[in-house]
């Protein structure tokens, strides 16, 4: 996932947008006060939000409210996911009393794709913490964030300089020097579709940012025992006809395909493949396409082709009834934002929000950045109340253990037959550390600071 989430945004670049407007910034929650609330549970987290009388101004952005920066590219992509998640979580938590009586006040930081630095500087000036969001080009803001010692629990981290950077805890499984797809690709090549190992293809968009992803994917696939027999670029500004691509895939006898691009294009490619009667063993549609949109766009090709996606250990939304935490997210959305959709990104944002809520509550009245950050680092099996497979936050650069594979069917996405061994997940993923150099995350030392500066 990590980097792939960015793709949709990167690929949708219409650069004519000389400047992309900001929409509805600053959805500040006004504390409605009055009604005394009772502590509320989220999933298996008891009393996550609770009333109290903490209100001392213990740090920047903290008082009767806690102001938190939520990064998003909403002004460019028009995707509201992170803003919705922040709004819903804050409304629910504040009704239950907030964090020891302090209300959560999420502040939308709309980086509009290119304005990451500006928003980061604003966030530096006003916010207590950064929670539950992410910008596609987040590398542009890391230096400023570290400079002002602003910690973050993002819902997504995309560029290499940011993933695994200091003062940041990523609740998405897998450290930055390990492949997040080791389990997934090893299962595909060794168990799921061993017949495809001799002929795997990779198609990726031609933006420079996708190149890192392409390199990592090829390295991991090769390590898992696959032979890359076909590798192609497509112009992200538009392909006039997918037929030559489909024909080349057919002629070269490609059996498995990794598509690093926008799912609207993949949908068209699959329609052409289906038209020319070619069915691959598997297509890695990646978790961007996990949702109803891809199924609608691909239409009949969904039944004809075998689309897989790795959710990286997030409990699948369609089975929410079997998992109280996931069901609770759906219920909360139904209550507080009935016309908004729950997506994979929303769930990931909730994992980050719950981590913040629990860590902040443990600090009591003396709420400081350092206290929250260190409380979070003590979580050795964080699952966001059960939204995802537990991960150990005390080791930030550790390989991902659990994965779960979804398969697209005309009735919707469903878990594939990937032999889960721990509930809905399979937790025997091998560790694969990248050998090639894809860039390094930024550290405090890089900008001449150290953890002792952090308060």
């Amino acid at each position, binding site marked *: 996932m990590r980097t792939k989430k960015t793709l949709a945004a990167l690929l949708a670049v219409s*650069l004519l947008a000389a400047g992309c407007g900001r929409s509805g910034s600053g959805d500040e929650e006004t504390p409605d006060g009055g009604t005394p609330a009772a502590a509320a549970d989220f999933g298996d987290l008891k009393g996550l939000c609770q009333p109290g009388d903490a209100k001392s101004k213990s740090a920047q952005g903290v008082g009767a409210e806690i102001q938190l920066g939520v990064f998003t590219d909403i002004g460019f992509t028009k995707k509201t996911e992170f803003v919705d998640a922040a709004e819903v979580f804050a409304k629910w938590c504040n009704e239950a009393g907030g964090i020891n009586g302090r209300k959560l006040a999420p502040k939308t930081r709309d980086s509009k794709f290119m304005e990451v630095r500006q928003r980061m500087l604003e966030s530096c000036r006003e916010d207590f913490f950064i929670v539950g969001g992410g910008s596609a080009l987040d590398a542009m803001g890391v230096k400023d964030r570290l400079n002002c010692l602003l910690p973050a629990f993002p819902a997504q981290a995309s560029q290499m300089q940011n993933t695994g950077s200091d003062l940041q805890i990523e609740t998405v499984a897998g450290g930055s020097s390990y492949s997040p797809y080791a389990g997934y690709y090893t299962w595909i090549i060794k168990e799921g579709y061993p017949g495809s190992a001799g002929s795997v293809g990779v198609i990726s968009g031609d933006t420079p940012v996708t190149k890192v992803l392409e390199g990592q994917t090829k390295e991991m696939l090769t390590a898992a025992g696959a032979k890359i027999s076909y590798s192609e*670029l497509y112009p992200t500004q538009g392909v006039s006809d997918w*037929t*030559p691509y489909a024909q080349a895939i057919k002629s070269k006898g490609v059996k498995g395909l990794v598509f690093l691009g926008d799912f609207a294009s993949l949908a068209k490619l699959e329609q052409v493949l289906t*038209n020319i009667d070619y069915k691959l063993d598997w297509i890695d549609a990646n978790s961007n396409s996990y949702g109803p949109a891809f199924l609608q766009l691909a239409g009949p090709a969904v039944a004809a082709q075998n689309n897989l996606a790795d959710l990286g250990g997030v409990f699948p939304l369609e089975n929410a009834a079997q998992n109280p935490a996931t069901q609770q997210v759906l219920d909360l959305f139904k209550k507080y934002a009935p016309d908004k959709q729950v997506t994979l990104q929303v769930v990931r944002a909730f994992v980050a929000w719950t981590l913040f809520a629990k860590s902040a509550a443990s600090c009591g009245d003396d709420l400081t950045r350092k206290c929250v950050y260190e409380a979070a680092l003590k979580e050795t099996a964080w699952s966001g109340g059960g939204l995802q497979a537990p991960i150990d936050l005390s080791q930030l650069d550790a390989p991902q253990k659990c994965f779960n594979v979804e398969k697209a069917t005309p009735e919707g996405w469903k878990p594939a037959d990937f032999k889960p061994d721990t509930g809905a997940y399979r937790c025997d993923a091998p560790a694969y550390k990248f050998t090639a150099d894809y860039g390094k995350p930024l550290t405090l030392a890089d900008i001449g600071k150290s953890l002792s500066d952090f308060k």
Partner: protein
Amino acid sequence: MEQFLIFGVVGLSTAAVYAVIGSGLVLTYTTTGVFNFAHGAAGMLSAFAYWQLAVGWGWPVPLALAAVLLVLAPAFGLLVEKVVLRPVQNLGEAERLVMTVALLSGLIAAARWIWDPNLPRPLTTFFFERRPLHIGPAVITWHQALTMAVAVLVAVGLWILLNRTRTGTEMRAAVDDRALVGLTGADPVKANRVAWVLGTQLAALGGILIAPTIALDAAQLSLLIVSAYTAAIFGRLRSLPLTFLGAAVVGCMESYLTGYLPQNQYLPGLRLAAPALLLFLALLLFPHGRLRGRDRKLRPVPTPTMRGTWIFAAVIVVFSLVLVTVLDEVDIISYGPMFALGVVALSFVPLSGFAGQISLCQLSMAGIGAVVWGQLAPDGQPWALVAAFAVSALAGALIAVPALRLSGVYLALATAAFAVVLDRWIFTLPSFELLGVRISVFNQGAVDMAGPRLLGFRLDEPAELMVFAAVCLALGSLAVAALRLSRFGRRLIALRDSEAAYATLGGSLLVARVLVFALSAGIAGVGGVLYGMQLQSVTADQFTFVAGLPIFLIAVIGGLGAVGNGLFTGTAYLGPIHLLNAVAPWTHNIVQLLPALAGLGFARHPEGIVPGQRRGWEPLARSRVALSALIGGFAVLWLLRVGDLIGNTVLLLGTVVLALALRTWAQSKEAADVKAEVPVEWWGVRRPWRAEDEEVLSRGIAGG
């Protein structure tokens, strides 16, 4: 062999799409003399409209098709003809080109506004439920077969229309000589209308046929047509059969390259760039007929004075210093690239303003400059700025040599093709070795840009870089003004006015063109370096052909011949957008339409905004009283602002009100002075006879 056959058939099916779009382009060009960059965008809009009717509102397909093709598309075509293009019919190529670029950006913004880009909009192909046809080993869907059939029908229909009907003859005649057509009793405006209606219908047809096979996405559908341009150029923008041949060549080439190009890391980009490369080659190899639209009126290039330019340069630097003192860091980062992009825009002035050469690849030149700086100056060594200038200039000269025989729209297309080749191939290359030198481009990712080290100081704060860029822009503006006043500048203008006359009088076209291309590319390269410094790190995405279009648009609106254009373009490109976003966030959809709206307003000021502004402000600059009042008033406001007694809004509004008031006062005062000047023959009649008048008259007659 079987493979070869399959890819051939596949290529032909792609070719059919290009043929439909390309013939629409050719039709509008042959009949109106406008090369329509917004052709794809019109198709895109039609595809969305068709989706809305057929899928969104569930109309039956034939009804939806009829509504789009017979009602909406013609209405849109008429609207475009009347509102957008008729006002610029008699202006130069750059102006007409700019109108279609404005239309393109406006339509994309509008479509993204109306149709939320995040909602899935499935559009099935026609006859998708039928089993595809098998022709030998190849498979053809009914949709592809339909597209081919439509392409052939369109070709036949157009040929009959243009060559066998009275309307068609009038349409062709209207391009050659509108005045003559008018004399013979035909109506050239009507011919234009027919052309736009038909052209838009063809675009709509192409859009509806192509949308189901690619994603229904505003930008993708609009920008897809580089390959169709290539087809149209094969037909030299006038021959439909050759356009079809071109479409077939491009379609098959793309298909065979997909099938046969060896797999290595240097070549996939070449395949993506192939249509653009072919376009470039086709432009160079095919003979081109006389360019249409010679009846345009040439406008004089404004002549700056050195004194005025020095004042202007000082204003630029003072402006940046004021910005630095009143804006906070966040805003400095937002407005920072203003002066850097101003330098890029300044590069249009000698090239397009003086020498009349249209270039759409100036931002790509800026990208080259940025890469050179990023690779050579990790610690900000100042000499790398010279290297960036030199390498970009070399690249500029490289385009100038083959493009020597191109002008007008052909040159615009050649430079556009060059920009696309850079985007898709050169900029995405991994580092390679050429003649023993290791060359790294963008290293397939971001290149870090260090601030310059000058006289022992390291500039890397946004504020410092902003002032540095402003100083560069000021120096650049001075240099360009000096160029305008020099012998070489006059030569360039002669070249613009008439290449034939210039050559006849002994000027060397090659030398002049290569020099001006190199110079302007060098300026753009420096602009790219400054821009990159502001951004701290750059990727190829920042320097694409598409990203360069709005800058070209605003530069033309500003007035290409004016030295002040650099500052104007930089300010107008970033200023209103950030300002409106800050003041009224709800306007963000309208903000994206701004460049397009500005383009449409352009028709009213064909000489550009800058010369008009200059005339408007000159009286103020001449009047010592007004000037000192302005400087004094502004200084007071600025001091109040620095002392935190007033906010930026008050400062801005106060300055604007003060300046406008003084301008009006100075203008009316000057107008009054002029009125006092009575023509010589009325002396003694309209005003009393003065003692000195006799001597003045005698001297005037003697001086004869």
